[in-house]
């Protein structure tokens, strides 16, 4: 059921010829924090082909957010190399290739829903990016009726959908999502996850998604990697066809996959001593 890392799904965006231009590469990335007994990231090596939905799963404090921050160029690794489609993360963010969905929706309270979604189009205008129609994005995420509302008046699920719309608004090539559904109840989680899937399916940007939830990882991903104490275990492919309709969570195949991923998680932990 679980197979080795799946092959690249090429999109014809990257410049051919540049090594690593069609994937995200981490090579021996280590990041330490003073107060910690072990590195937050310990020699992490990873290659994610363009267009893949890649999920990192692991317990609290495992280094998931640190990994995303290093990929986004928000934090610099102590050693090792990070390459986003052949360029360093700083370059990728300058070119507006990075979408960021933090754990809290982090909407601007004074901006209406539509203006929050437009925000990425209003900053760093020097970088040319193909903007999407924000109205169409809202419609796809069932937010059209909330277009002019302020975030304070939205439910948690709606806010998180706005954060997703904002991240998709400028067609980033790499989407980094840090437990975006962490604060939502289970039913809302499932609903928003399926909306995200639909949106992703249409364009297939590369996604690196962080979660605590095995079910979410299986539902969304092409590939899942387990992280514990800063160490990444080998990734496993999720052989579940696409598109993945609502209700797939109840299928036999889905249950088998979650069960074997759980087993994998347990094994990773007994190995890491975590």
């Amino acid at each position, binding site marked *: 059921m679980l197979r080795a890392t799946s092959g690249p799904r090429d999109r014809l965006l990257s410049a051919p010829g540049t090594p690593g231009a069609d994937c995200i590469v981490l090579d021996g990335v280590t990041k330490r924090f003073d107060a910690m007994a072990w590195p937050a990231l310990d020699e992490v090596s990873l290659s994610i082909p363009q267009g893949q939905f890649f999920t990192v799963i692991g317990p609290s404090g495992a280094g998931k957010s640190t990994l995303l921050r290093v990929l986004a160029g928000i934090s610099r690794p102590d050693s090792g190399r990070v390459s986003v489609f052949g360029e360093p993360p700083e370059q990728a963010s300058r070119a507006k290739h990075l979408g960021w969905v933090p754990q809290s929706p982090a909407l601007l309270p004074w901006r209406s829903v539509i203006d929050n979604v437009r925000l990425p189009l209003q900053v760093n205008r020097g970088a040319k990016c193909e903007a999407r129609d924000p109205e169409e994005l809202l419609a796809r995420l069932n937010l059209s009726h909330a277009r002019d509302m302020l*975030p304070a008046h939205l439910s948690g699920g709606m806010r998180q959908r706005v954060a997703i719309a904002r991240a998709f608004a400028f067609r980033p090539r790499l989407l980094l999502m840090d437990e975006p559904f962490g604060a939502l109840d289970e039913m809302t989680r499932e609903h928003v996850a399926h909306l995200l899937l639909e949106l992703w399916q249409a364009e297939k940007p590369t996604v690196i998604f962080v979660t605590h939830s095995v079910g979410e990882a299986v539902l969304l991903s092409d590939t899942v990697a387990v992280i514990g104490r800063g160490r990444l275990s080998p990734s496993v492919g999720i052989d579940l066809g696409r598109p993945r309709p609502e209700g797939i969570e109840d299928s036999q195949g889905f249950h088998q996959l979650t069960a074997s991923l759980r087993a994998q998680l347990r094994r990773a932990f007994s190995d890491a001593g975590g």
Partner: protein
Amino acid sequence: MRTAELLRPSRWLPTAVAAAVVLGAWQLVATSTTAVLPTLGSIWSAFTGNAGTLFANAGDTLEEALPGLAGSYVVAVLLAVVMSQSRMLTRALLPLAIALNVSPVIAFAPPLTVFLGLGQMPRVVLAAIITFFPSLINAIVGLASADRGAVEVFETLHASRWETLWRLRLPASLPYLFAAARISAPLSIVGATVAEMVLGGVNVGLGRQIQTWSSYAELNLAWAGIAVLAFFGLLITGIVVALESWVLKARGFR
């Protein structure tokens, strides 16, 4: 906050009871030992008999307090913005601001008159100095208060410093800018009043009059003057609070 809510007894009753207790205690002390406090009745008649003088002088005091407040508020916010953009400047300027805050500001008053004269100007300056620090600190905290996730969104978009300031940090600091105004506004009246008392100078302003009345043992009038100042302190605080709750609501903070 809606008016209907303000009218509910659970909102106003505690305040009313506390005020009644204080006034009752006052009256008790005043009637038993007339030397310490005048009775409420005699303060009231001093007030009604001299309302014109009291309000004219209160107006003079506000003429000193409010420009001082506005000037220092604008400078404090601008300085906080500048400091938010440069760690070097923060390191250079913040200790100076702290030194200003811990020094006995009233002691600046006499030297101030030396080059600002005996008019109302030194009082304006003192009101400005006394309100400066609370405004500055609140503005600094406010500019650093933007949601961390939102800062990261701006960072990953490679937004410029200016874009981050203008579209994120400044608007996010609004609740703190209101807090600054809420603290500084009544403080400016204190500053102006104290300056009038310490500096002497031109014979206008309630602080100046209270001092004179006290020295002539016109305690009824002095207390009436104090009450008028307290009223204006409450009034401008109330205006700021009302504005704050309205604007913060409209801007989605509440």
